[in-house]
């Protein structure tokens, strides 16, 4: 097939018919999908846009339509009116949830609702008490207020954290105000681009961003870069001619936010256009609004946290209700039962956990920001870790989005040029005389120039006036030969034929820099087949040889080979004009062509490509080994896409597409078993005809897929297809055309430097250095934080049982209350906070990049083994340890455990001031109360000491602590120190504040729980040992969380 060779014309309009056909394919999908999707997602705007007919109108008709004048422009007053009517020419930023709603969501989200219920129950209980007895104590009100305060504080904290990470993004939105040169009141004025209105006449220079959708009125050799709209790297020619019915393809319309690369010569190097659409009504605006129409789905970690909240809340409520019923049937007062219910809820809800998770996530976010991964929403931090499919855009994401010389062919040999970002390492053989000639042609037959005033800028970063290929050639020669401008000066240009679509070549005539050589040098470059036609000889090793069949064949092979790599191939030839026929004074006339244009000497071929970023192949390999499937989705041509995919490893070296197999076996494509092919290249056209089921099959059966020629909608469809596979999908992209898919993805990743604002605002993560490899960092950090959150949650859940058991024992066995609600809050929000954050600093246990991504429905954050092990194993051991401390305190003070049984009622009677203990001593009610608080403190200390052991064992899930290194994570020790210090302060510093219910505990009680802590550690080591020794066993399945 002819399209196999993707030879692209040097510049200019090319052959219209062919391009248009291609465009049809590209946008056909868009149109159709619009109609398809309309039923459930009204996307009529885009459809409407297609009815645009401004491109068909003549200039006069346009003037009438928009009430403007091409020469004088709009009047300022009219412009002001229109501005008032249509609004500024900017994209409406996506609607933000009002801050107050966000805040309220934090207030009722997660466990908050349970705690609110607790607080309200407290107040109700007080109300009932108060109506019975006016002098009833304010304890319940107090507790209720504390609970409410806890909810509000954690809510404010979470809101603040979330707002902080959103603020980082806000800075992105402050675009540099763009200026536009506009004709108003017959004068040229520079106005901010957002002031443009329909009917304005604007002038555009090369390098400008198109300030709105414009209908070109006059333009010469204008080329635009539509990559942000379509993903094509090649410049698209634009002129004032109406060339196609479809407004998206016609040459006389250029679109908002695309870049005008070049405008050649008259008049004054500018193109003039009339603004026909502004702001959200532009094509880009509509795609952007398509993106904002896509609902943001919940992040995977959000789902996991919700799942976990449900589990914990379920446990809390069911135990609470169960014991409420038990309490009522044990003839407790309903009021007391309500108080128990509150206690159980408070004990069961890990109040500090969500705040901890937020902090842990924001720590990771900060760490990632340092590595140039900026994360917008905190929860997106983890998403990359769960990602199983990455749909990557090609242009600008995988590639550098700039044409670069990739291969050279001369002396019948293919040479590889360095395509890395700085070109530093050009190793091909430059000794051949052919190269000297070729380099001269490259240097001279080129109109691109560096912009002045960039002496200190590295060559590859210098701004250039000229189209992409010429820029590539200019930079290439500058790197190899040094100062190109100087060479050009020495070889003065005497005449030039710029590229045009009929010639398909570019020619220029120069004096030579050799003073003894008075001949003129004609240099020519252009489409290889066209250039070859003009040649009669070919240069081999600096010698001209007649162009015979074998050399022509070699040329064709090379041409096909390079074309097959998806590269744009150019041919170069030259001719020295005989000095006698063309003396130095000869006047060349490019119109009459008074010089020979045939019998040139063919020098070589040179091919260019938008090369992959140098970090990408490595990153792709790493993602692969991490079990992540990478799919390329691009608007570009399939051949180019496939070539890039192969060079970065998205299609691995030894895998074939169905077409490849067919070609190898020499059979029809239909005869090949689709399952044999690992790779697949699918175009937008093919995708358009696919049913969702077929797409699913495609996605499931091929591990290496490239989608080419896709529209923004199709990108969306592909992402949805991947999500149907239960995959967590990351989408990377930089263009506006990517933004709907970025939004739809579980995590959208935008490029920070090349990315458009639409892409950045739709994305959840921005790679500040545009380095695809940062994604690997993201995956690693995401997986690590997922593992570490598991540890944090396990750590936090454990003590819940130790906090809950006292209430249950209190209700059933009638012991004086071992731990108070306020004390529980001091554990949850005091001693436990820093240690649980410290777990976020834990290093990975094994190589997390060598395992598969988690399955979103099977590998939960909180799974059964985690809950069971935390609650029923370590939690219970902790409760026992804490009870031992409690019993020790009471027994040493005079109340032996046997006496304590069923003592609750007498104990709590305020008027009993001579309650007997086991020794016959009599206690006043306040003395008992004080002892009870000592009990609280003792229980608290017991839990705290054992939480230290819990913290240490949670450092790992499988490895021994000693394998992991006890002291490697210093923050853990900071956590332990904080735990102890807070407990010491509570007991000895604030022990005298009655309301806090802490007392000064005798020093020896701090050590009662130590053996239990050691026991916990030992038990967990045994568990881990058994898991390591018997992988896959029953024990492993049930004890590994």
């Amino acid at each position, binding site marked *: 097939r002819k399209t196999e060779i993707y030879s692209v014309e040097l510049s200019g309009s090319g052959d219209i018919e062919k391009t248009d056909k291609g465009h049809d394919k590209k946008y056909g999908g868009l149109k159709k999908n619009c109609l398809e999707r309309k039923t459930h997602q009204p996307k009529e705007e885009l459809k409407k846009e297609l009815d645009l007919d401004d491109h068909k109108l003549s200039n006069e008709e346009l003037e009438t339509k928009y009430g403007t004048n091409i020469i004088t422009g709009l009047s300022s007053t009219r412009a002001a009116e229109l501005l008032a009517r249509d609004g500024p020419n900017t994209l409406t930023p996506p609607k933000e949830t009002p801050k107050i709603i966000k805040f309220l969501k934090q207030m009722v989200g997660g466990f908050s609702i349970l705690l609110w219920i607790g607080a309200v129950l407290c107040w109700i209980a007080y109300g009932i008490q108060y109506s019975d007895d006016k002098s009833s104590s304010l304890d319940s009100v107090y507790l209720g207020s504390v609970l409410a305060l806890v909810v509000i504080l954690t809510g404010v904290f979470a809101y603040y954290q979330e707002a902080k990470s959103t603020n980082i993004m806000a800075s992105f939105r402050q675009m540099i105000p763009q200026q536009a040169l506009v004709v108003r009141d017959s004068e040229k004025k520079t106005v901010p681009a957002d002031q443009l209105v329909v009917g304005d006449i604007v002038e555009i220079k090369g390098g400008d961003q198109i300030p709105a959708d414009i209908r070109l009125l006059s333009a010469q050799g204008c080329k635009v870069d539509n990559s942000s709209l379509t993903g094509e790297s090649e410049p698209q020619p634009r002129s004032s001619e109406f060339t196609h019915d479809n407004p998206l393809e016609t040459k006389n319309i250029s679109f908002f936010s695309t870049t005008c690369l070049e405008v050649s010569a008259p008049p004054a190097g500018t193109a003039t256009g009339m603004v026909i659409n502004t702001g959200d009504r532009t094509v880009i605006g509509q795609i952007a609004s398509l993106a904002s129409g896509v609902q943001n789905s919940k992040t995977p970690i959000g789902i996991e946290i919700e799942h976990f909240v449900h589990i914990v809340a379920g446990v809390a409520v069911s135990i609470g209700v169960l014991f409420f019923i038990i309490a009522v049937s044990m003839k407790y007062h309903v009021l007391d039962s309500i108080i128990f219910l509150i206690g159980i809820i408070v004990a069961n809800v890990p109040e500090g956990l969500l705040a901890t998770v937020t902090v842990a996530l924001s720590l990771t976010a900060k760490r990632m920001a340092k590595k140039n991964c900026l994360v917008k929403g905190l929860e997106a931090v983890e998403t990359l870790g769960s990602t199983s499919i990455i749909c990557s855009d090609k242009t600008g994401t995988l590639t550098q989005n700039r044409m670069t010389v990739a291969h050279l062919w001369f002396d019948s040999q293919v040479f590889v040029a360095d395509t890395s970002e700085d070109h530093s390492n050009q190793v091909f053989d430059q000794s051949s005389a052919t190269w000297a000639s070729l380099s001269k042609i490259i240097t001279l037959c080129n109109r691109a120039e560096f912009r002045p005033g960039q002496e200190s800028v590295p060559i590859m970063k210098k701004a250039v006036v000229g189209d992409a290929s010429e820029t590539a050639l200019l930079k290439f020669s500058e790197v190899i030969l040094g100062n190109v401008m100087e060479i050009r000066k020495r070889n003065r240009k005497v005449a030039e034929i710029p590229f045009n679509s009929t010639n398909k070549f570019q020619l220029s005539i120069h004096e030579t820099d050799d003073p003894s050589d008075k001949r003129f040098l004609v240099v020519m470059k252009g489409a290889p087949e066209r250039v070859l036609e003009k040649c009669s000889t070919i240069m081999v090793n600096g010698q001209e040889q007649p162009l015979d069949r074998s050399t022509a064949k070699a040329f064709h092979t090379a041409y096909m080979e390079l074309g097959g790599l998806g590269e744009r191939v150019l041919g170069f030839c030259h001719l020295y004009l005989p000095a006698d026929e063309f003396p130095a004074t000869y006047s060349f006339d490019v119109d009459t062509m008074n010089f020979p244009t045939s019998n040139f000497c063919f020098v070589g071929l040179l091919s260019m490509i938008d090369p992959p970023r140098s970090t990408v192949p490595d990153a792709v390999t790493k993602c692969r080994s991490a079990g992540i499937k990478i799919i390329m989705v691009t608007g570009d041509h399939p051949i180019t896409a496939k070539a890039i995919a192969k060079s970065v490893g998205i299609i691995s070296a030894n895998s074939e597409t169905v077409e490849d197999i067919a070609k190898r076996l020499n059979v029809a494509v239909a005869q090949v078993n689709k399952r044999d092919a690992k790779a697949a290249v699918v175009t937008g056209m093919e995708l358009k005809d696919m049913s969702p089921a077929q797409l699913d099959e495609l996605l499931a059966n091929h591990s290496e897929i490239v989608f080419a020629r896709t529209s923004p909608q199709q990108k969306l469809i592909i992402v949805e297809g991947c999500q149907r596979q239960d995959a967590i999908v990351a989408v990377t992209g930089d263009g506006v055309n990517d933004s709907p898919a970025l939004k739809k993805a579980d995590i959208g990743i935008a490029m920070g430097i090349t990315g458009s604002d639409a892409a950045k605002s739709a994305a959840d993560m921005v790679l500040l250095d545009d380095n695809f490899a940062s994604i690997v960092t993201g995956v690693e950090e995401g997986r690590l934080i997922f593992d570490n959150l598991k540890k944090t949650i396990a750590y936090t859940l454990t003590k819940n049982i130790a906090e809950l058991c006292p209430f249950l024992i209190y209700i059933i066995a009638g012991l004086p209350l071992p731990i108070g609600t306020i004390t529980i809050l001091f554990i949850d929000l005091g001693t436990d906070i820093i240690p649980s954050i410290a777990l976020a600093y834990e290093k990975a246990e094994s190589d997390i990049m060598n395992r598969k991504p988690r399955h979103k429905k099977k590998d939960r954050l909180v799974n059964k083994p985690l809950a069971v092990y935390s609650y029923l194993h370590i939690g219970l051991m902790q409760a026992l340890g804490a009870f031992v401390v409690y*019993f*020790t305190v009471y027994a040493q003070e005079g109340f032996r455990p046997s006496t304590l049984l069923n003592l609750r009622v007498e104990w709590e009677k305020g008027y009993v001031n*001579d309650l007997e203990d086991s020794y016959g001593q*009599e206690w006043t009610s306040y003395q008992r109360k004080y002892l009870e608080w000592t009990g609280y403190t003792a229980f608290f200390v017991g839990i705290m000491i054992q939480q230290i052991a819990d913290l240490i064992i949670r450092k790992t899930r499988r490895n021994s602590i000693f394998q992991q290194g006890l002291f490697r994570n210093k923050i853990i020790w900071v956590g332990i120190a904080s735990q102890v210090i807070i407990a010491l302060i509570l007991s000895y510093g604030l022990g005298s504040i009655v309301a806090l219910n802490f007392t000064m505990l005798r020093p020896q009680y701090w050590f009662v729980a130590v053996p239990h802590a050691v026991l916990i550690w030992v038990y967990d080591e045994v568990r881990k040992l058994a898991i390591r*020794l018997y*992988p896959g066993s029953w024990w492993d399945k049930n004890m590994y969380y």
Partner: protein
Amino acid sequence: MRRQLRSRRAPAFPYGYRYRLDDQDEVNQNYLADEEEEAEEEARVMVVPDLEEEEEEEEEGKEEEEKEEEESQAQETGSAWWRKWQIVNEYLSDPEKRMSLARTGQSWSLILVIYFFFYASLAAVITLCMYTLFLTISPYMPTFTERVKPPGVMIRPFAHSLNFNFNVSEPDTWQHYVISLNGFLQGYNDSLQEEMNVDCPPGQYFIQDGDEDEDKKACQFKRSFLKNCSGLEDPTFGYSTGQPCILLKMNRIVGFRPEPGDPVKVSCKVQRGDENDIRSINYYPESASFDLRYYPYYGKLTHVNYTSPLVAMHFTDVVKNQAVPVQCQLKGKGIINDVINDRFVGRVIFTLNIET
């Protein structure tokens, strides 16, 4: 089967999930048979850690997958509720796979056994702990007594709110005080005291050296010491005449000894309001004090017949028909009666409201 299992674990396998779904039934059925062998096999093979995780996933996901399966079947058959019921039912017991609650019977019994042993050892641990605790604690003498010191004070008759409201002319309103006092004083009956306890010399501690576990003797405190408030002469303890008796006792504390010298005295006065609301109080014993001979207390176990010394306050002339707040304080060396938080340490406050 074996091969499939292994291939599922192969890390490079690209479409693990899909294939796993297909295999699931088979896996479930053969699971038990293969379990042990598998474990051995895997131990030999030395699998990479993460692969086990996957194995676990299956266990985890089993129930969900069943649900999925069910759902697809039931879609044709019935309503959503029926489907849900089926799922729950299936989850609770699945005779086909001999499973209930997503586990097989064998799995359940294994769990029961393991948990039995685990909790049994925990019980053993706590028993050991408590045993050690009791070893360190003397049954005769509490380890610490600071919390219960200084001694609290309590009065009899027993009234919930320490408000003595009664109407002299209505015996019903004070009868329960009388009953309470009578009951309380049974242990102080002279005959009983003389039979059980010794008459020890007043004005000095009744110290009984000897082994901790020896039974200790107690000093007599006879009911008759309380004179008019003993209920012997006036069986209504003065309530019938509007001159109520209230008994005051100091809380027992093992080893507590009031400072030598003047014994601890009791004195009552109007707490708030007109001092003259109480015009006279008689104390019995007349010294209004707790004699040193009743101290120290040796604890319930050995000091079996110990009876707390009492001081009776006879409010012989109190303003009638109004609430009179009364505060009775202990006074003496080393006695604290002004703890803000504890209104029963060294003092007791109650109100008398005698109606006529």
